[in-house]
């Protein structure tokens, strides 16, 4: 896949950094110049402290071309994201962007299924943003741990023809998983394309379910891996290509892969 736009090293300014769910933050960043973003691409962001040498890769959730603001959501998982959760309006951070191949929807693909789990929901929201005024029809299947984690998705569910919110404990929407709901709804949805992002067990369940049901609808997944440079040079964030003795770079060849192209 061809990368859209050119990678750039930029100093960005924090507009807001708010907790939207337990341990999950929405970070708005003002860019100094206009960037050509594609849904599913990501940026590699410094955490604002010299002792943490690695940047953190975050999928772009939305991009406002007019105000040149980019929004990412992240979960506090370790020291780096904890530091990031403390940055404030006006703080300067460094980042390189836009990175990765992103999601693509071909002209003839009209009905698109979006299957997301946990923080994997956020990159899929960028698909809804990019295509919401197009002739595409979306059905969304989004899984969360409980009601407390659902918040952001509510803002976007009107952009899908049907949006199914699933929670592990049934405290919001239906009890169950996004993948099981997708298969339950499959006959109704009849998608031309499936796009997914979420925890590895979820992607494995999706891959197994598609194989079991002999569903041949094109399916693309966005993967996550610990990264070094973030731009494809260091070979840190690799995944195995299915049926070959080769690795793919998650940051450069991905993060979006055909589900049958890589080992999950």
């Amino acid at each position, binding site marked *: 896949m061809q990368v859209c736009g*050119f*990678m*750039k*090293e930029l100093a960005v300014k924090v507009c807001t950094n708010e907790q939207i769910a337990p341990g999950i933050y929405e970070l708005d960043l003002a860019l100094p110049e206009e960037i050509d973003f594609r849904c599913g691409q990501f940026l590699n962001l*410094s955490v604002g402290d*010299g*002792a*943490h*040498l*690695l*940047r953190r890769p975050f999928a772009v959730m939305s991009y406002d071309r007019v105000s040149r603001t980019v929004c990412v959501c992240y979960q506090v998982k370790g*020291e*780096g994201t904890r530091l990031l959760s403390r940055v404030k309006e006006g703080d300067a951070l*460094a980042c*390189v962007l836009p990175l990765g191949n992103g999601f693509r929807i071909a002209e003839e693909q009209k009905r698109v299924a979006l299957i997301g789990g946990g923080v994997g929901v956020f990159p899929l929201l960028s698909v809804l943003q990019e295509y919401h005024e197009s002739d595409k029809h979306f059905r969304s299947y989004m899984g969360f741990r409980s009601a407390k984690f659902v918040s952001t998705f509510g803002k976007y569910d009107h952009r899908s023809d049907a949006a199914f919110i699933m929670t592990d404990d049934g405290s919001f929407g239906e009890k169950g998983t996004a993948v099981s709901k997708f298969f339950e709804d499959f006959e109704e949805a009849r998608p031309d394309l499936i796009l997914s992002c979420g925890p590895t067990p979820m992607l494995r369940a999706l891959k197994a379910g598609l194989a079991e049901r002999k569903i041949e609808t094109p399916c693309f997944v966005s993967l996550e*891996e*610990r*990264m*070094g*440079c*973030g*731009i*494809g*040079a*260091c*070979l*840190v*964030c*690799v*995944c195995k290509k299915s049926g070959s*003795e*080769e*690795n793919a770079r998650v940051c*450069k060849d991905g993060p979006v892969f055909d589900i049958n192209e890589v080992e999950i």
Partner: protein
Amino acid sequence: MAKLNVNICGVNFKNPVIAASGTFGFGKEFDEIYDISCLGGISTKGLTLEPRLGNPTPRIAEAHGVILNSVGLQNPGVDVFLRDDLDFLKSKHIAIVANVAGRTLEDYEGICARLDGLVDMIELNISCPNVRCGGMAFGIRPESVKEATRVAKSALKHTPLMVKLSPNVESIPANARAAEEGGADALSLINTLNGMVIDIERRRPFFANVTAGVSGAGIRPIAVRMVWEACNAVGIPVMGMGGITCAEDALQFILAGAAAVQVGTANFSDTLAMPKIIEGLNSWLDAHGVADVNELRGALQLD
């Protein structure tokens, strides 16, 4: 505008700032962000005769002021490099240092013979800590450092040989001298330090390979000391590296005796780290009335 170019065993580097092996691939990705022709040179991702898949993921971790990596020499093999990447690097008019690794002495001999005359310099990696039964094994004892150097040198008729030393050894001066005696034209150091991270929840090592290579700003004082020791031990030129993030860091290595420096981990923290270091060197030299960076090489005063 100070004079920045340096000559290391007949190879001209337009400035003393060279991309360190493993952090910069073969240069194409960074060239999408800035024109890498501004660099002094590039040391390629470690090359082997055959393609290598490398280690399982995760391959990287972070600790205060440092990172650890366990990539394990993933590379497409020397022939793919020659076919797909060499012309691109040549078009950039920067010094091309091919970093080479192997499992056996025959591997080192074979890959050096393959690259002889095709690149500007060979950097012999006898010190990679992330590959079992190879690399590091040759880098530990002075006798095997000398032997690996001798074998590599015997395969090189046209291209100078630089030997990259491991810091995980008993004596840097002894290994530096061993490489010089084996016929090395230059030395580079330090490779990464051996380190380990433990996942306390899983009660397991973070890396599948258990240990990994530590690099980044936090190791710089160790690297400066080792480069200084190596420069005092040998007469051949030395390239210094280890935790360089800015021009001032690079100058410490040059004062310690390094003819040039390599920059690795800093490329992860800031993709523009190297152009900034080059610019910073120029400004520092101008501000201090130093006309030529070579005047500072080994200019450390101990009294």
